[in-house]
């Protein structure tokens, strides 16, 4: 077969190239541009080379924020994934309960992020907040403004409240796609409840779970709005995650060069970790 060479085809991909250029490539390039220069305003730039990157990688502040962020992502995944599966397994499969449950589950997802933050900020306050006030009233010393541990608990509970439904909905979609015959066959084969979960339900949920873990990991690793609204990164730096640190550097201190370098490193880490996650989980899938 003779291959046809026709360069006119490039025109057909041009629109998408232009779109991606304006939405991603050009903004990213300006960040690259900032990251290798120093500026004091007035559009005057000095070449800085890799200085900002070296500084960043030797900065304790950066590594601490990163560690906090990884711990946070790990904790919320460890809670939201099992909890999401558990709730999905217990949701009704038919009848009037289905729409009720679906709406209830979707509600937290529909609330704007800064509103979620505000809700919990008020909810947890120990002077006027419903939660904060009564937790203190029963004798537990709880104050997320002053105690780092309480601040962490608040942010984790808030994230679980906000995002577990995403895992639930994805798992539920996987579960309802299982034909009844599978459960009937399992009954005939004498399978226990655990065996039904392990060999029928879990394999069917595997793909959606992969997506859920990936989404929740990326989202939690980039979390900004909710902890910013609730704790502002405090007390001290105890809830300063990478993105909060980044915004402090870029807009608080107006250090554009270091902030740009940080953005790029941040971006590469998210990309790398997502890739690792995806490859590990899909390879595991293929092996089985």
């Amino acid at each position: 077969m003779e291959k046809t060479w026709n360069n006119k085809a490039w025109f057909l991909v041009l629109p998408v190239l232009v779109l991606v250029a304006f939405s991603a490539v050009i903004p990213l390039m300006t960040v690259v541009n900032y990251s290798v220069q120093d500026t004091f305003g007035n559009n005057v730039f000095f070449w800085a080379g890799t200085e900002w990157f070296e500084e960043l990688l030797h900065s304790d502040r950066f590594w601490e924020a990163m560690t906090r962020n990884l711990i946070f992502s790990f904790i919320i995944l460890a809670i939201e994934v099992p909890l999401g599966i558990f709730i999905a397994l217990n949701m009704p499969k038919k009848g009037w309960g289905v729409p009720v449950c679906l709406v209830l589950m979707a509600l937290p997802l529909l609330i704007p992020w800064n509103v979620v933050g505000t809700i919990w900020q008020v909810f947890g306050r120990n002077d006027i907040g419903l939660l904060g006030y009564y937790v203190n009233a029963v004798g537990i010393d709880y104050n997320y403004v002053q105690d780092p541990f309480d601040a962490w608990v608040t942010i984790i509970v808030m994230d679980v409240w906000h995002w577990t439904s995403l895992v639930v909905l994805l798992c539920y979609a996987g579960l309802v796609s299982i034909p009844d015959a599978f459960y009937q066959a399992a009954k005939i084969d004498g399978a226990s409840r655990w065996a039904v979960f392990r060999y029928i339900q879990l394999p069917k949920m595997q793909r959606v779970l992969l997506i859920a873990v990936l989404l929740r990991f990326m989202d939690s690793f980039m979390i900004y709005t909710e902890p910013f609204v609730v704790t502002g990164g405090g007390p001290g730096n105890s809830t300063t995650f990478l993105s909060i640190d980044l915004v402090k550097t870029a807009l608080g201190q107006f250090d554009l060069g270091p902030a740009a370098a940080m953005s790029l490193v941040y971006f590469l880490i998210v990309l790398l970790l997502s890739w690792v996650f995806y490859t590990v989980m899909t390879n595991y899938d293929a092996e089985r």
Partner: protein
Amino acid sequence: MARIDVNHVRHSYLPNPQKDADFALREVHHTFEDGGAYALLGPSGCGKTTLLNIISGLLHPSHGQLLFNGRDVTNLSTQERNIAQVFQFPVIYDTMTVYDNLAFPLRNRGVPEADVDRKVRETLDMIDLASWAKKKARGLTADQKQKISLGRGLVRSDVNAILFDEPLTVIDPHMKWVLRSQLKQLHRRFGYTMVYVTHDQTEALTFADQVVVMYDGGIVQIGTPAELFERPRHTFVGYFIGSPGMNVMPVAIDGKTATLGSQRIELPGAPKAGSGAIELGIRPEYVRLGRDGMTVQVSKVEDLGRHKVVRAKLEGRDIAAVIGEDEAVPAEPKVRFDPAGINIYADSWLVEMARVEMGA
């Protein structure tokens, strides 16, 4: 293996059934003999899957009793009844190997691993998948998956019965034939009680010794394939079995003669008086097309390769006749009914006829 008695079983999916129409299964009273191969044949919605699920215990009947070898099992769970069932769509445990799939029902019952191994190997040979034992089950073809579903039943040596719920629906036509003959072989070799639900008459007639024809929530006829063909007890069986189905036409009866419009048809005997609408049924295979008899207007000839189906009008009613592949339709076509194939129905049910040999 077991004899299964279905004792006046009625079932409704409604919580509070009142009239007959509320019942998906109006009333079934039948015995499946130990080691028999039965087919439940009927159109969609006739209640055949309901009956099967009642036997397997996936459904609890609204009324009636179910006995396995005389023991009441109506209130026992599926697992306690110890039956095997193969579903319309192959059910396999994706993440397990073929071997583990077959071992699953045994391991669930706590059978020692040495026995599991022996039974699984035997079963793999029976279903012809020995070389696939170590493969993941998810990569198999539909017919292999269906064999695994079957194998999970066969692996338990003590199953009371093996039930099939339209198991060949998703199988390619050429594999259907292979699987069906393998099933027949298994039945002959091991003598399982098998109940096979289908709406495909070829499948039912080739698989079963006894075909149970169901219609509208009840059993209309139980018989060998030949009986169903020659003497359908109900006009529905006549329509449903055979291709094309039986010709049924309203007639008036006077002794040994039937009157259809202006035509008189000699009957093989005098039917016992029946009440209600009287109809004459005759299969297209017994309608002789030739130069004498009753005048018909031929509307269409369908050539099926092996034979031809002639569609015609007799006294304004549609009638089908089967003629040989190399026979031609005469210029002035007429039909005669072979008395051996004539059945008389009153209110759709067969009326007994004292058959007299013709020419005697």
